[in-house]
């Protein structure tokens, strides 16, 4: 399957997977789920860049999210495989730039490897939790959550439109490239000289489409100064409990090195 088509399928899947699901997580207020996700990301990023093992307990959060998500482990892994090369590119130079020796579990290696590993773990946890959250709540849930957290309506609308525009752009690109491919005979790929016209055509088509979407919005009374109400949502005890328990857990992980404490406890129990 061409990569563009694959991207489109994945993006559509994001919403499709979340559609009409009813899990304990879907029944929580989107704002509560969102708050916890933000707290998770903040906690994750607040660790020192040399910490790796201390991050591991945080994997419980995406693991539990996965329990409620319709995303299969294989699909999650395939999403992550797309992102991992970027993370690796960002961190791979650290072992050569930070060569100070460090000893871990009796092995001596460059401190840069710790930074690289930490980056890899953090990137993986952050990406997987965002993906799982999106597939569990759906984009509709995410936008509602943002509005309930009093993020300005214009900003949420911009985000929704940007997402819509990405889809339009991908759809149009796919159509143009399919039409091109079908008339390319045996040649594969796009000739260098044709890229300019293809990109120009794509820009004009998407610009035109964006114009029509804007016209349709104006005809339905859209004006940037129109206040869009905050979606109704009453927090129940479970919502508060959900937020409090996760906040407590993140605080515990951040203030105590749980893996180290666990290791020491095991050493005391099994001294041999």
């Amino acid at each position: 399957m061409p990569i563009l088509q694959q991207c489109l399928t994945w993006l559509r899947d994001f919403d499709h997977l979340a559609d009409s699901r009813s899990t304990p997580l879907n029944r929580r207020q989107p704002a509560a789920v969102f708050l916890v996700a933000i707290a998770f990301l903040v906690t994750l990023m607040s660790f020192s860049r040399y910490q790796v093992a201390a991050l591991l307990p945080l994997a419980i959060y995406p693991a539990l999210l996965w329990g409620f998500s319709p995303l299969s482990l294989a699909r999650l892994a395939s999403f992550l495989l797309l992102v991992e090369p970027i993370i690796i590119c960002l961190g791979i130079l650290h072992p050569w730039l930070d060569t100070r020796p460090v000893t871990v579990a009796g092995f001596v290696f460059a401190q840069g490897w710790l930074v690289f590993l930490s980056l890899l773990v953090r990137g993986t946890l952050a990406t997987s939790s965002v993906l799982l959250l999106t597939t569990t709540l759906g984009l509709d849930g995410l936008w509602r959550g943002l509005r309930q957290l009093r993020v300005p309506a214009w900003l949420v609308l911009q985000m929704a439109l940007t997402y819509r525009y990405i889809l339009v752009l991908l759809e149009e690109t796919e159509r143009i490239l399919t039409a091109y491919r079908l008339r390319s005979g045996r040649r594969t790929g796009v000739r260098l000289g044709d890229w300019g016209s293809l990109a120009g055509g794509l820009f004009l088509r998407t610009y035109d489409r964006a114009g029509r979407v804007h016209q349709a919005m104006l005809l339905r009374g859209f004006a940037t100064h129109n206040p869009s109400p905050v979606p109704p949502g009453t927090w129940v005890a479970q919502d508060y409990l959900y937020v409090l328990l996760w906040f407590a857990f993140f605080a515990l992980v951040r203030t105590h090195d749980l893996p180290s404490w666990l290791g020491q406890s095991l050493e005391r129990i099994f001294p041999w």
Partner: protein
Amino acid sequence: MVNGVLLEARGVSFAYPGGPKVIDNLSLSLSGRQSIGVVGANGAGKSTLLLLLAGALKPNSGEIVFAEAGRAPVNPATTPGRIGLAFQNPDDQLFLPSVSEDVAFGPRNQGLAATEVQERVTTALEETGIGHLARRPPFQLSGGEKRTAALASILSLQPAVLLLDEPTASLDPLARRRAMRLLASLEPLKIITSHDLDMIWDTCQQVVVLKQGRILTTGATQDIFTQPELLGEAGLEPPLRLQGCPRCGVAYSPPFAADLAGEGVAAVSV
């Protein structure tokens, strides 16, 4: 503006920047209820006429006045949603993450209270029979579903005039039949553009024939569509059902929509 006229175009001309005139000195009065068909060959100016009537485009000369705006020039900002336009491509219209959000978009912009917005959404979805799609992302729907969702997003505004650009284009026969039944059941005055003259025959009592941005003729659908020469002049052919069997030449004489439609027939005058 004569009493009872809802929408009136007076000497309207329009050209896209750098292009030739798409609408040329067009005058038209629309009143009543039910449906008026606007037909013409490709490039006759049908879609542009709808955009002008909705206020999405401003005429280069002439004016379009709307009774509800105190006979002032039509402007979507002053009478939001009172003239609803369903675009030819529903993808141009649906942009929010779920069908219900999209249907609620217009009423929210009208400044209605949350409960009333919800009521409007429920009514529009029920009216169009797509309540089960409320939570679905619009861009995952089939062509027919998208078209219906786009229509629901207009109906939730409770428009006085409904402008429909090719409402049955690229629909399969069943979806087309369903769309036509739905259109026939809708209350407000409908202006429908289409190449599908059989559909226009079934749904519109009056018809406006456009040729190169000018009105070639207007009148009762039954009268216009039974004049092949006139239609030919506009680059059109009579509805298939009036063309008769290509082998035996026997023409089928279906009942005309207006005969079945009852009271409140739409009126158009030039």
